[in-house]
């Protein structure tokens, strides 16, 4: 049953071939059986079964929508009413959110069943899921390797089919990169397309919620539910939401794929480059035109990102002060002691590094040289993307320079880790939508094809992804032991 997509499960539920309760039990069983992956921080078994039974009841009354009863796992960055929401941090180890994030609320309203909360890098700061307070997540394709990050719990859970679908958030590649490293389909919508309300903020001008699923079609079904205006988020865009499933099969003949030459730099594993070229051939067969394009400032995206994101995070994380919620140190002797120890003990090393980096680049005397400068290079990067989209329908390239690396391999040097996101950071800086879809294997490890769309052109991006998945079967491959 777990090898089915949510599109298939939806049809089975509608046809009465299975029930949500049966599905939910099945996934809960798998989560238990594969607990060693450490993909979940919290499993909400009781609530899930209750929600499943409610969905089944709705279906019997004929009131169920297409996603009713589909079991999903939420990244533990989304606030869930009455359920622990930790952001994989000691700081929020015992935090029970008193409200639902908009994404969660919309999925609940669609009748989806929440299985639990997935592991992640602490406060979404990381590319390997190794910064989690609750320990690293293992990649189901090779348990000695990372599943990517920060949505590593979701990508691992999806790769292992511990849920029918999962959510993620993408600030600098945190959906696309883990999807690439786990043979799953990751979708990061346009900034502002999905509400950020209730998603614990890392870097507000970059954060965007999305999904990690088995297929592009599943991603489209979920985006139909989570996309749209939310009056509680000032940066949410009031723009009609199309039916993203309606255009999945559209003909792409004559459409133009731009391939940025900067993606094929020295750091790229030639075998990954080869996979990209193979994938482009599939598109050529479908009639798409491939053109070379240039994003001359792409090289600035990682350093720009590592000024902008830490600056925003240093401020966003000030609210964790041990006063109203979250971790408080033992016996604080003064206000300053309360702040410093609660935060010093409650945050992990990477989070502290980023807060300090951000504090530094915003501080008196350094603001112009770092923060203001990065705002300008960000503009240059965005303009590159916009210029490219004057001539192309989508951009394509690798999602990551290599396949999944080993757990512990890159933890010593933050820069090496940061450079793993060299192809994905730019999309967040520009605010455009991006996807990663399975495109093959290197030594048995999956790699992903990145598809980048113009602002609010998720439908076109999904159309490209779906047409590829109709022609290929990479996305159907499951790791050994998880079939």
């Amino acid at each position: 049953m777990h090898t089915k997509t949510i599109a298939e499960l939806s049809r089975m539920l509608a046809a009465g071939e299975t029930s949500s309760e049966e599905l939910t039990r099945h996934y809960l069983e798998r989560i238990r059986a594969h607990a060693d992956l450490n993909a979940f921080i919290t499993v909400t078994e009781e609530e899930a079964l209750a929600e499943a039974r409610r969905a089944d009841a709705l279906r019997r009354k004929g009131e169920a929508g297409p996603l009713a009863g589909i079991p999903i796992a939420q990244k533990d960055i989304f606030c869930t009413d009455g359920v622990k929401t930790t952001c994989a941090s000691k700081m929020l180890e015992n935090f029970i959110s008193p409200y639902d994030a908009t994404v969660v609320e919309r999925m609940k309203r669609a009748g989806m069943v929440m299985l639990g909360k997935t592991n992640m890098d602490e406060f979404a700061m990381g590319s390997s899921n190794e910064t989690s307070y609750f320990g690293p997540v293992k990649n189901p394709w090779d348990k000695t390797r990372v599943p990517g990050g920060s949505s590593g719990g979701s990508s691992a859970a999806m790769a292992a089919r511990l849920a029918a679908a999962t959510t993620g958030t993408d600030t600098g590649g945190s959906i696309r990169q883990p999807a690439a490293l786990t043979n799953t389909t990751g979708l990061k919508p346009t900034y502002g397309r999905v509400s950020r309300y209730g998603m614990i903020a890392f870097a507000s001008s970059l954060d965007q919620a999305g999904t990690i699923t088995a297929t592009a079609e599943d991603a489209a079904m979920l985006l139909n539910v989570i996309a749209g205006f939310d009056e509680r988020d000032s940066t949410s865009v009031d723009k009609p939401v199309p039916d993203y499933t309606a255009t999945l099969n559209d003909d792409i003949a004559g459409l133009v794929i731009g391939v940025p030459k900067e993606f094929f730099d020295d750091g790229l594993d030639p075998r990954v480059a080869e996979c990209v070229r193979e994938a482009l051939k599939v598109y050529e067969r479908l009639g798409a035109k491939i053109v070379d394009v240039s994003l001359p400032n792409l090289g600035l995206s990682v350093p720009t990102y590592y000024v902008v994101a830490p600056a925003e995070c240093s401020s966003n994380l000030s609210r964790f002060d041990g006063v109203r919620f979250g971790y408080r140190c033992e016996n604080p002797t003064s206000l300053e002691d309360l702040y410093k120890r609660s935060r010093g003990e409650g945050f992990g090393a990477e989070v502290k590094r980023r807060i300090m980096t951000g504090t530094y680049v915003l501080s008196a005397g350094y603001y112009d040289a770092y923060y203001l400068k990065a705002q300008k290079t960000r503009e240059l990067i965005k303009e590159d993307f916009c210029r490219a989209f004057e001539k192309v329908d989508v951009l394509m390239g690798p999602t990551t320079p290599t396949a999944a690396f080993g757990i512990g391999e890159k933890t010593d040097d933050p820069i090496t880790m940061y450079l793993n996101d060299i192809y994905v950071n730019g999309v967040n800086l520009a605010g455009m939508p991006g996807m990663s879809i399975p495109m093959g294997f290197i030594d048995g490890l999956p790699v992903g094809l990145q598809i980048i769309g113009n602002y609010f052109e998720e439908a076109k991006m999904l159309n490209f992804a779906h047409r590829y998945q109709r022609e290929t079967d990479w996305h159907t491959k499951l790791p050994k032991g998880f079939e």
Partner: protein
Amino acid sequence: MEWEVVIGLEIHAQLATKSKIFSGASTAYGALPNTQACLVDLGYPGVLPVLNREAVRMAAKFGLAIGAEVARRSVFARKNYFYPDLPKGYQISQYELPVVAGGSIEIELEDGATKVIGITRAHLEEDAGKSLHEDFHGMTGIDLNRAGTPLLEIVSEPDMRSAKEAVAYMKKIHTLVRYLEICDGNMQEGSFRCDANVSVRPKGQKEFGTRTELKNLNSFRFVERAINYEIERQIELIEAGGKVVQETRLYDPEKNETRSLRAKEEANDYRYFPDPDLLPLEIDDSFLEEVKKTLPELPDAKKHRFMESYGLSAYDASVLTGSRAMGDYYESVVRTLGDEHAKLAANWVMGELSGALNKDGKEITETPISAAQLAGLLARIIDNTISGKIAKDVFEAMWAGEGDADAIIEKKGLKQITDTGAIEKIVDEVIAENPGQVEQYRAGKEALLGYFVGQVMKKTQGKANPGQVNQLLKQKLG
């Protein structure tokens, strides 16, 4: 050495919105601690700010009223610092691009001259919560009900040269924000607060001296006292060879002194940057036009109109335009009586009515005697039904809620005696009863006239028309 004082004020006016600047929690004063602090006000993880339209409207209204530029585009920034009454660890405020820039107002000096005070800027920001230092086992309690209340911070140019000017400026802004109905001006509740930047320099010197910032000035009296104390402290310090340190100082009204708050200020680096959760605030022509339509007649314009239309002195006009409600009340009385009785109305509103209000600690808006009722009373003076003196008794009865003037006059039989025959009869009686005084008067002691008037009034319980009594007495005694 002669010293010149330089003062600039930063006034924080809480905007009179129903809900907070970035959340839907109530701004009502006096609720139980933390019962009006919603997730946004508490800075809960994941929640986001959405700007209150009314707060923007009020800021724009203020901008228009002081002849300032209302920015077509302004930006909210984060001011980062840690303090327990600041839930998010940053205050959302406007930094580089404020919503209002470059206005001015005119104040009146004691000698009657006027002076223009420049207003550098006014920007929107959120208020912080409150720290309660009563003892909770040696701990401080935090109430976040106030957190997120919209504030308009009004920053003046360093244009004031004495504590008195500073107070005059503050009072003027206080009057203005209440006229505009954008702030209730309640200083006890902290709706209208002020910090003062104070420095001194040798007279004639161009450069400013080092300034200190005085905090916690929550009454006009404290502003004056704190500034005067600080001026003296700075002058004494410099004259003794010391140097003024740029710092924040807290005014202690009990000791009437300012003291350094250096501990809190140490290593301030607010790391301002544009708040990524909020987009640039854009104000277009139609929004401004809409706001313009809601602008009332402003205090200065009203004052000048009162002087011209009603022939009032500058002082009277100032007092009667001290608040919009006062001006409305007065004009309503005048409208009923006619412009020719404007002075009588002014005397009564400023005299009896204001006195009674003060005594009971009431605002004009809480007066038990409506403008129509007061006009009804004054009409009886004008038509000679009662004397001014009797009117004061009637006023008291009205204040006590005994009804309209006519009903009270009727019930108490206070109608003035204007019948010449009746008055003449009593005058004759008085003359007959006081032969000694009559003799003295006729011998030239004319001051005795008042005695005879008093006797007549006594016999008529004050109801005789005093003009007629005077005239008859003079006639008969002369």
